[in-house]
C-alpha cells in the first residue's frame, strides 16, 4: 500500500467520523435546548469550542447567535469541522483513492456529499434540521457498514479504522471537557432537576445513553458517566475502546514499534485514571493531557507510515 494512499484513507475516515460526530452534537444540543428552563440562556458558543474552531468562527461571524452558530457548524464549507466541510474533505480524500475503496462506497460518499450540499437550506432551518442531521448520520453509518462489508480488511482497512477511532477518541474527550464545565454555569437549587439532563445529553451526543443504561444500571451520575465514557471496554465510543482498536490495527502493520508504544502508554494512562474523583479543574487538566497524547499517537503514525523516509521492503 502506497504511503500517500494510506494517508488519504486515514484522513477520509477521520473526516467522515467528524461529519457524523458534529451532526450528532448539533442534533442533541438542539433537543437539549428545548428541555431547558426558559430562564437558562443556552450558550451555543460552547459547541464551537468543542470542535476547536472558535477562532475561525470569530473571524467569520459578528454575532454568536443560534443561527450563525448552526450555520457555522453544519453548513460552512470554510470550517473544516462543519458537517459540510468534513464531507468536502472526506470526498476529496476519497476521490484520490477511488481505485482503492469499493466502488459502491465511493458512490455512497459522493451521493451523501451531493445530498448534504443540495439540501443545506432545509438543514439550516429549525424545522428541517433534525431530519437533515439524522440522515447525514445515517449516511455516514451506511458508508462505515459498506466498507466493513465490502472492503478487504487489509492494511488499508487498518488505516481507515485508525482514522475513525482517533477522531472518535478526540471528539469524546472534547465533548466531556466542554460539556462538564459550561452547561449550567449558575448553581442554584431550582436547576437541580436539569443536571440529570445535562449528563444525559453528554451521553446522547455520543449515542451512549442506552448503552450506558445497560452497562452501568445506575442513575445518570457524573462519576459513572465519566467512568463509562473513559474506561468502558466495549462501548465503541469510549476512549479506552477507541485506543484498543487503534492498537489492534497497529498489530497488523509493519514497523509498528514506535506508534504501538505510544498508544499502549496512553491506554495505561486512561485505564489507571479515576476520572470520577477529579474535580472540574483536574478533569480539564487530565483531558488536556489526553489530547496531547492523542496528537502524539497521530504524529507517530504519520511519521512511521506517511513520511517520506521509508525503509526498504523486506
Amino acid at each position, binding site marked *: 500500500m502506497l504511503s500517500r494512499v494510506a494517508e488519504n484513507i486515514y484522513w477520509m475516515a477521520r473526516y467522515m467520523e467528524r461529519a457524523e460526530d458534529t451532526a450528532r452534537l448539533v442534533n442533541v444540543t438542539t433537543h437539549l435546548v428545548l428541555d431547558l428552563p426558559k430562564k437558562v440562556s443556552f450558550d451555543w458558543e460552547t459547541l464551537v469550542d468543542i470542535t476547536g474552531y472558535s477562532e475561525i468562527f470569530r473571524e467569520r461571524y459578528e454575532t454568536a447567535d443560534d443561527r450563525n452558530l448552526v450555520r457555522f457548524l453544519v453548513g460552512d464549507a470554510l470550517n473544516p469541522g462543519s458537517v459540510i466541510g468534513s464531507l468536502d474533505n472526506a470526498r476529496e480524500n476519497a476521490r484520490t483513492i477511488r481505485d482503492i475503496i469499493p466502488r459502491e462506497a465511493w458512490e455512497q460518499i459522493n451521493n451523501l456529499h451531493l445530498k448534504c450540499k443540495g439540501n443545506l437550506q432545509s438543514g439550516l432551518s429549525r424545522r428541517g434540521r433534525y431530519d437533515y442531521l439524522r440522515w447525514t448520520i445515517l449516511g455516514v453509518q451506511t458508508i462505515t457498514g459498506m466498507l466493513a462489508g465490502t472492503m478487504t480488511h487489509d492494511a488499508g482497512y487498518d488505516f481507515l479504522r485508525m482514522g475513525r477511532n482517533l477522531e472518535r477518541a478526540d471528539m469524546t474527550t472534547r465533548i466531556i471537557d466542554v460539556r462538564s464545565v459550561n452547561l449550567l454555569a449558575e448553581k442554584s437549587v431550582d436547576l437541580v432537576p436539569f443536571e440529570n439532563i445535562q449528563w444525559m445529553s453528554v451521553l446522547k451526543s455520543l449515542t451512549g445513553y442506552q448503552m450506558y443504561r445497560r452497562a452501568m444500571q445506575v442513575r445518570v451520575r457524573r462519576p459513572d458517566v465519566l467512568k463509562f465514557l473513559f474506561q468502558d471496554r466495549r462501548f465503541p465510543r469510549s476512549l479506552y475502546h477507541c485506543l484498543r482498536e487503534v492498537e489492534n490495527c497497529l498489530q497488523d*502493520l509493519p514497523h509498528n514499534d514506535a506508534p504501538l508504544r505510544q498508544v499502549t502508554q496512553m491506554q495505561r494512562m486512561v485505564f489507571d485514571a479515576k476520572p470520577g474523583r477529579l474535580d472540574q479543574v483536574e478533569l480539564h487538566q487530565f483531558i488536556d493531557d489526553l489530547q496531547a497524547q492523542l496528537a502524539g499517537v497521530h504524529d507517530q503514525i504519520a511519521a512511521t507510515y506517511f513520511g*517520506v523516509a521509508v525503509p526498504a521492503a523486506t
Partner: protein
Amino acid sequence: MTIRWKEYPTQGLYDELMRGGGRPRDAARFLCQYLKRLSDDEIQARKAAAELAIRVMGITFTVYSQQGGSIDRAWPFDIIPRIIPRMEWERIEAGLQQRVQALNMFIDDIYHEQRIVNDGVFPAEILAGSKNFREQCVGISPTLGIWAHICGSDLVRDKKGAVYVLEDNLRVPSGVSYMLENRQVMKRVFPELFQEASILPVDDYPSQLYDCLAAISPRPLAQPEVVVLTPGIYNSAYFEHSYLAQQMGAELVEGRDLEVGDDDCVYMRAVEGLIRVDVIYRRIDDMFIDPEAFDPDSILGVPGLMRAWKKGNVALANAPGAGVADDKVVYAFVPAMIRYYLDQDPILPNVETYLCADKKQRDHVLANLDKLVVKPANESGGYGMLIGPQASRDEREKFAKLIRKDPRNYIAQPLLTLSTAPTMVGDHVEPRHLDLRPFILSGQKTYVTTGGLTRVALKKGSTVVNSSQGGGSKDTWIVDSEGA
C-alpha cells in the same frame, strides 16, 4: 411530445441513425421504434435517470476555474446511442490495426536506422522540425519493438458517410473510461434494449490493457507490479487515471510516490517499505516525466526515470518519444508508411491534407484560406485552429502570417461536414455533429475497442466535440444486425 422521426431533419448530411424522411438505418431500426413508443414523460424520466447515474457514479471531468480552484463537473451525456453495424465496424477495426502497426514500425525506424528517410519516403527536414522527436530515445529498443502501446485515433465521416482518420493520438490519449462508463449508464437506463438486441460488450478493455502492460514487464513475473502514473487530482483526466487503475487492480501513483534507486530500478514508497515497479502506464507527457532528462522544473515526474527505462529496468507505456508520430504533419504520411512498411493499401483513408512546408501546397493553402481548416502540428484539444469559412478577415490574415513564418508547423484540410446523430435537445431530438475515438492496444497482438468514445458537439451547428469546449458524449453500439 414524443419523438416524431418524420420531423427529424437530416439536412442532406450523413446521419448515423436516420436515412431521411423518417426512415431509420437498418441497424438502428429497433432503437428508433423503441424510442418512438416512449411518451415524453418516459423519455424525460430516462434522461433524469442517466443524469442521476452519472452524478452518483461520480463520472466527472475536471475543469479549472478561477474562483473555486479546480472543480470536477458531471460528464455531459446524451441518452440516444450512436449505432454502427458490426460488418462495417470490422472493416474499420482492420484499418485501425493496420494503421497502428505501421505507426509503431515508423517510430522504431525513426529511432534506429531511419530507413524511411534514407529511402526518400519521409522527408528529412520534416523529421528535423519535429517537436516530439526525442534525442534521448535514439537507439533504444523497447520490448517487442512497440512504442505506442495505447493509441486513440479520431474518426469522422463526411457528407457521404465515408470514414476518415482525422488524427492519431499517440502520447497520452484519454477518454476510454468514459466509453466504459457510458455503457454502464446505458445499461442502468435502458436495460430492456440490451436484452432485445445484440449489442457487443465493451467491458474487457481494462483486462486487455492489463495484459498488454504486463507483457512488457522487464522481470518475467506472473504478476508484475504495474502502476498508473498520474499528474494528480487537478488533471482533467484524473477520473480516468483512477478508474483504469481501479479496474486493472494496479496502484495509482503520483511522481512523489516513486523514486529511482542506486540500482537504477524504480520503487514506490509504500507502508511496507519500498516496492519495485515493473511497468508504468504513464499519463504524464514526455516533457514532465523526468526532470533529470527533460524539463528540470517538473514536479510531476520522477528524477532518473529515463535512466531506469534506458537500462531496461522498467517499461514505460507509451514509450517516451512515441509522440514523434503524433504530429499533424507526420499524419499526412501515414498512408505512405502503410505502403512502405506493410506493403499494403491503407484500409482507412486520411482526410486530404496540405502541408504548408511544401511550397506548392502552401501557396494553395494561402490562396484558399477561406475554404480550409488550418491546424498547428502539435496542439490538441481543438486549440489554435483556424476554421477558414467561419473566420473573419483579420483572423485569416493573422494565420497567413503565422504560416509564412513557420510553415513546418501548419497543415490545412478541407472543412469536413461531420456526420450527425439524433440528440436530445430539451424535449425533442435534433441532429448534432459527432466523431468517434476508438482505442487501439498494441502488444503481442493488437486489440481495438468495440466501438469507442463517441463525442458529440452539443451546440447547434458546431463541430467542436472536445469536452473542454462544450462537447458531450454518447454510448457507441456495435450492433450485430445480421443476427437480429
